[in-house]
């Protein structure tokens, strides 16, 4: 199995590219926002810091994740270092999966670090108490990344242009969050064509809204555990499909 060495190589490559500087930026934004919001909204300080923190975690992870996933394979093709790898007894799908897992490990480390900083800040600056949904919301952020990284990587193999792949991934991210609204619109719209288009979008684009537990932190009943489990399974299945598609495209490339 060559997946693990490839993943390890990806992690080292990301560390060398100083991707962790984003964590420093996160710490600065969090400290700054906690100072500002403690004076602007004194009675909702913990809520505001939590929301900003989780939003920053998601956005920073999204940006670093898409950027890393899109450029990993494309840069290797451009620099022709991939030829060297392909001469080794390595299956192409193993290369794709190894690269993918490497990026995920880096993102997971980033999320955990940022989450620890956020929790520390909340503990120090407010009378915050840990809610299990808070941890689940961070876990579902990671599962959103599992999908979007697979999309970005597959898009880079299909489009072979990093800008197009990044724009495509970002578009899917936006539509995915609008998914529940798309369904409501599809139910109301009269035109059959529009209805068909909206339903197609709804069923093909991943529904990121169901992963959005950070927006459900204030809801008393939260989300049942069995539904969370199904959502996580949905994320994994979606990512696997995309990786299979990506591997098929990669297998057809000639080096």
């Amino acid at each position, binding site marked *: 199995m060559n997946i693990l060495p490839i993943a390890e190589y990806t992690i080292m490559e990301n560390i060398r590219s100083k991707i962790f500087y984003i964590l420093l930026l996160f710490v600065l934004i969090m400290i700054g926002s906690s100072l500002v919001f403690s004076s602007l909204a004194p009675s*909702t300080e913990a809520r505001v810091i939590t929301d900003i923190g989780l939003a920053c975690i998601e956005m920073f992870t999204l940006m670093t994740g898409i950027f890393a996933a899109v450029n990993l394979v494309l840069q290797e093709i451009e620099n022709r270092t991939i030829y060297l790898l392909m001469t080794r007894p390595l299956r192409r799908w193993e290369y794709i999966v190894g690269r993918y897992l490497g990026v995920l490990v880096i993102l997971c480390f980033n999320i955990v670090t940022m989450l620890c900083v956020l929790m520390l800040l909340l503990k120090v600056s407010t009378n915050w108490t840990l809610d299990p949904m808070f941890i689940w919301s961070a876990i579902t952020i990671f599962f959103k990344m599992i999908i979007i990284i697979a999309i970005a990587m597959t898009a880079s193999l299909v489009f072979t242009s990093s800008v197009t792949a990044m724009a495509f991934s970002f578009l899917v991210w936006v539509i995915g969050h609008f998914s529940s*609204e798309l369904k409501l619109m599809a139910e109301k719209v009269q035109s059959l064509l529009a209805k068909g288009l909206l339903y197609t979008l709804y069923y093909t684009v991943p529904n990121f809204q169901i992963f959005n537990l950070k927006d459900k932190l204030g809801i008393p009943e939260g989300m049942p555990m069995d539904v969370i489990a199904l959502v996580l399974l949905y994320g994994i299945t*979606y990512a696997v*499909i995309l990786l299979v598609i990506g591997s098929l495209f990669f297998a057809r490339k000639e080096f």
Partner: protein
Amino acid sequence: MRRGIISIIILAVILFKLQSTIESRYVYPFPPLTTMKYVEDNPYLELGGLFFGLRSLAADIAWIKTLQYYGGPNEDAIKEEHEHHTNEEEHEGHHHHDLHDNDMTAYRKLYSLCARAVWLDPYFMHVYSIGSAAIGFVQERYDEAALLLKEGVVWNYDPNNVQYWRMNYALAALGYNKVKDYKNTIAILEKMIDPVDSPLILLRVLANTYEKNEDYEKAIKMWRFISYKFPEETEHANKKMSYLDKRISEIK
């Protein structure tokens, strides 16, 4: 290649099944786009909240904007005063009248700003409690305050949650206050307000209602508590306490 396509088809079927199961169990927890009523010229918060899955953060920003509006100068009343002033100068000559906190024209946008915040996040309890107190008890626009609270009651129905009951109490207190039944208003406010974790505005409402009910000693006690809990309010609390002391001595 063939194996890959077959596995994609099998996984797609599993995915579809999973999605249908989740769909039957998952309730979209927010008001849909079609119910959006109060949109500013630039609906960046609504769009950001919807397209990036950041509704809760967008609601926080909307709420901060509301607090800034309410904490700032009463532009609506000033504008109205200016128009009134200009008209009177034109027709009858110079005339002045004071602006009061509970002027019906004051902070006219307050309800729509609160409604915007709770459209983004209908589970944002602070907006209901602080917003309805400001609109209803301070500005005396009872119908708007009741509308905001009713929205909160519908979205946050949970008999086991103390916040749900507080919203219902607030609705009842507003009703009594509207007909100037201060005795019953106080009875309900006392049930509703927990001095330890209540926002300042509710404590002020309670202190002022004691005063309206001529229960000056309780009012002084509440202002003393306010000045202890919120040191920035000490100056205002001291003024109120000396005024209330005078009232007590007048009566004696």
